[in-house]
C-alpha cells in the first residue's frame, strides 16, 4: 500500500462454463496456460510489476485449488511486510445475511471492510480471465492526471467484432460519454477490458447505494458504470495497445497457446523487465531422447520427449513415448502419451493418459478436441 496507495481486487469467481471439463472442478483463473502458467498469474504478476502490494482475490466457484494457489503470495513477490495476496471467498458477517457473491459489484461490496482496513485512495478492479501484460501504475498516473472518478482500460477491436463487447463511446479527450453492452450498431470499436480504477470513496458510496437497489444485477458493467455516467461523474478511458486475449473458450485458449510459438510473439513471456511469475515445480530441464524429435514447440522443464512433437505447447512432466506423434496440441502438466499414440489439434487436460496406439483428434479437424479423460486404444 505504501507504494502507490492503490489496492487491487481480482474478480476470480467466474465459472468459465465454455471451458467445459477444464473448469469442472477448477475455477477458470486457475486454468493452465503457456507451458507453465495459470491464467491468474498474469493479473497477479502485473500487480507485482506495477508496484501494487495488496491484492484481494475474490473467489467463489470451485475455489479450493485457486485458494491454495493464490494464497502463496511469495510466488509473485507479494510477500514483503505490508503486502500480500488475500483470498476472499464469501463469508458470514455480523449483522448481514450470509450469501454468495451476487455479481461483480456485490463481491466488492461484501469486502468493503477488507478494503477499508488498508485505507486506499484508489482501487483497481481486475478480472482473472485474461492473458495480457499491463502496467497498472501507468494507468493510475493517467487516472490522476485526468482527475477522474473512474478510469476504464479499453482495447481497440475490429469494428465487425465490436458488437461482441462492452463498447465505450468517448469524446476526443478520451472521456467516456456512453457505454453500450454488446451494441448491435456499435458507434466505436473501443472495448472495455474489465479493468477499472476507481477513487475508493466514490466507489464505496456507489456500492452501498447499489446494494439497496431492487432488481440490480450488482454488476460493474450493467449497474455501476451506467450509474456513474448518469451522475455525470468523470469517467476516462485508458487505451491499451498490446497482446490481450480472453481465453474463455477451448478454441481461444488453444489459439492463445499457439500464439506463443511465433518468434517475437507479442506477449513475450521472456521480457526480463516484466516477468510473469508462477509456481516453480522442481524438475530437470526438458529432455529430448535420441528417439525423440521436436519441431516448432514451446516446452517447459520436466517434459520428456521420446516421440515426435510438432507445433505444440508442452507443460512440465509431460511424457511423449516413442513412436507417438503430437501435433498442434496443448498438453497440460503430467499428460502421458503412450507409444505410437497420435494427438492432433487438441488440448489435453492435466494428468490425462493417452494409451499406446490411441488416436486423438485429427489434423483435418477444424475444431479443437478437449481431452479430459483417459483415452484407450480404438476409442
Amino acid at each position, binding site marked *: 500500500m505504501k507504494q502507490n496507495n492503490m489496492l487491487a481486487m481480482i474478480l476470480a469467481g467466474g465459472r468459465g462454463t465454455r471451458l467445459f471439463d477444464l473448469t469442472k472442478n477448477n475455477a477458470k483463473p486457475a486454468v493452465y496456460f503457456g507451458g507453465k502458467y495459470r491464467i491468474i498469474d498474469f493479473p497477479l504478476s502485473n500487480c507485482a510489476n506495477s508496484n501494487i502490494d495488496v491484492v484481494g482475490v475474490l473467489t467463489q466457484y470451485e475455489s479450493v485449488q485457486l485458494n491454495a494457489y493464490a494464497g502463496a503470495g511469495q510466488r509473485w513477490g507479494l510477500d514483503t511486510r505490508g503486502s500480500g495476496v488475500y483470498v476472499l471467498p464469501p463469508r458470514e458477517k455480523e449483522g448481514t445475511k450470509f450469501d454468495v457473491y451476487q455479481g461483480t459489484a456485490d463481491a466488492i461490496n461484501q469486502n468493503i471492510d477488507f478494503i477499508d482496513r488498508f485505507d486506499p485512495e484508489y482501487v483497481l478492479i481486475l478480472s482473472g480471465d485474461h492473458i495480457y501484460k499491463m502496467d497498472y501504475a501507468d494507468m493510475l498516473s493517467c487516472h490522476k492526471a485526468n482527475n477522474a472518478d473512474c478510469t476504464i482500460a479499453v482495447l481497440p477491436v475490429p469494428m465487425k467484432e465490436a458488437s461482441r463487447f462492452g463498447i465505450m463511446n468517448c469524446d476526443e479527450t478520451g472521456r467516456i460519454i456512453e457505454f453500450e453492452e454488446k451494441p448491435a450498431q456499435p458507434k466505436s470499436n473501443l472495448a472495455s477490458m474489465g479493468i477499472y480504477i476507481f477513487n475508493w470513496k466514490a466507489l464505496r458510496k456507489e456500492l452501498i447505494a447499489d446494494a439497496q437497489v431492487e432488481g440490480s444485477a450488482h454488476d460493474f458493467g450493467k449497474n455501476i458504470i451506467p450509474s456513474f455516467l448518469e451522475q455525470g461523474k468523470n469517467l476516462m478511458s485508458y487505451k491499451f495497445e498490446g497482446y490481450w486475449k480472453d481465453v474463455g473458450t477451448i478454441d481461444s485458449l488453444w489459439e492463445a497457446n499457439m500464439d506463443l510459438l511465433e*518468434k517475437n510473439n507479442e506477449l513475450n513471456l521472456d521480457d526480463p523487465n516484466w516477468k510473469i511469475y508462477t509456481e516453480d515445480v522442481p524438475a530437470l530441464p526438458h529432455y529430448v531422447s535420441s528417439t525423440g524429435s521436436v519441431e516448432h514447440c514451446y516446452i517447459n522443464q520436466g517434459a520428456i520427449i521420446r516421440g515426435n512433437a510438432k507445433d505444440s*505447447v508442452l507443460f512440465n512432466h509431460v511424457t511423449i513415448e516413442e513412436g507417438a506423434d503430437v501435433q498442434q496440441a496443448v498438453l497440460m502438466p503430467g499428460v502421458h502419451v503412450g507409444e505410437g499414440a497420435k494427438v492432433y489439434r487438441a488440448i489435453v487436460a492435466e494428468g490425462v493418459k493417452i494409451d499406446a496406439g490411441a488416436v486423438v483428434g485429427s489434423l483435418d479437424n477444424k475444431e479443437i478436441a478437449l481431452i479430459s479423460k483417459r483415452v484407450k486404444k480404438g476409442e
Partner: protein
Amino acid sequence: MCNALGIITYNGLNVYVQGLQEYRPIAGFNFLGRYRLVDFPISNMTNSGIDEIQVFIKGNPRPLIDHIGDGRQYNINSKHGSLDLIPYYNEEGRGNPEFAPDVESYYNNINQIEDNTNDYVIIAPVNMIYTANYKDLLQQHIESGAEISILYQNVDDAKEKYINCDVLQMNRQKGVLKIEQNLGNYKTRALSLQTYILSKELFIQLVKEARKVSSMYWFKDIVNDHCVDMDIRAINYRGNVYCINDLRSYFESNLALLEESQMKQFSKDSWPIYTRTSDTAPAIYLKGGSASGSFIANGCQISGSVKNSIIGRGSVIGKGAKIENCVIMSDVVIGEDAVLKNVIIDKHSKVLKKKELIGNAEDPLYIGRRENV
C-alpha cells in the same frame, strides 16, 4: 526430522577444475542446465529431514549468496529451520586463504556449532553428486556403534579417474585403516565420498584437536590420525556417484546424465532436487530448431540442431548451428551456422565470429565466462 546438523563443505587443493573455478567456488558450478552443484547436497539434506544446514564456502561468495538467498526454494521451514551460507573469513588476516583448511572455517564458526541443538553432524562435499537418505544413514551409524562413519564406493577406473581424491583403506569388516590420496596406481579403489557422520561432540573435539596439531590440517587428516584408536567405519553407497574433480570429470558427469537410466536418480517426485527459479518462460524451438539426446533448460531459443548436449537457461542457438556433445551454460549465444563439438561454454559467452569450435571428448575445449569468440 533428522537429529543432525548438516554441513556442506568445500574441497581441498587436490580438487581443481580448470577454467570454471577461476570464476566461482565449486559449489556454484552450473550443472545440468539449471542447477548449481550446491543444490544437490542441500536437497539431499532437506529431503532427509535435516533442516539446519551450514554451507561453508571459500572463494567468491557472490554467485552463491545470490543463488541460495533465503533458502526458501530448498523447502526448509522458515521458523525452526535455517540455511546459513558461511564464506571463509580470516579475522587476523594471517595465513593464505587459499590454503585455509575446512577445519579453520569450522573453528571460526565453532560457537554456532556448539549452540546447535542437534546431537549429530553430517558433513557432505559439494563435488560429489549422489542421492542419499541421511536419515537412514544416521540410523545405520547409530546402530553400528561406530564413532565415525564414512560413505564410500568401490570404483574400478581409479587409474584414470578420481586422481588426488580421497580413497579409503579398509579391513574386511569395513573398519577404516587409512584415508589416502588416489595417485592413480591402482585400478580398483574405495573412493571416499567425503561424507562423514559423527556425533556433534566428537566433531567439535576433533576440530579443536586438528587446530592444535597443525594449521594445515584438514578434517580428513585428523580422522586419518584416529584410524588407529577409533572405531571408524565405511558405509558402501550403492547408487550412482558423479565425482567432479577436474574439467574432464565435470564434462563427463554432465553428459553421463543424458542417459535416461542415470538421470532417473535425480528426477524422482519423492526426492526432488531443488534450485532457485529464474522465472524464465519455457524453451522455444523456432524454425529449424531441433534436439536429440539433450537437456534444454527454460528460456532457451533453439533455431539450430542440438545433439547429445546440455543447454543452460536462457541460451540462444542460432539458425543452422550444430551443437554436439557440448555443455552450454546459461545465457550463452551461439551464432548462425556455428559448429561446436566437445565444448564447454561458460555463462554469458557469445560465439559469433568463430564458426567452428572442436574439442576432444577426453579434453573438452573450454570457453570462459563472458567471452566473445
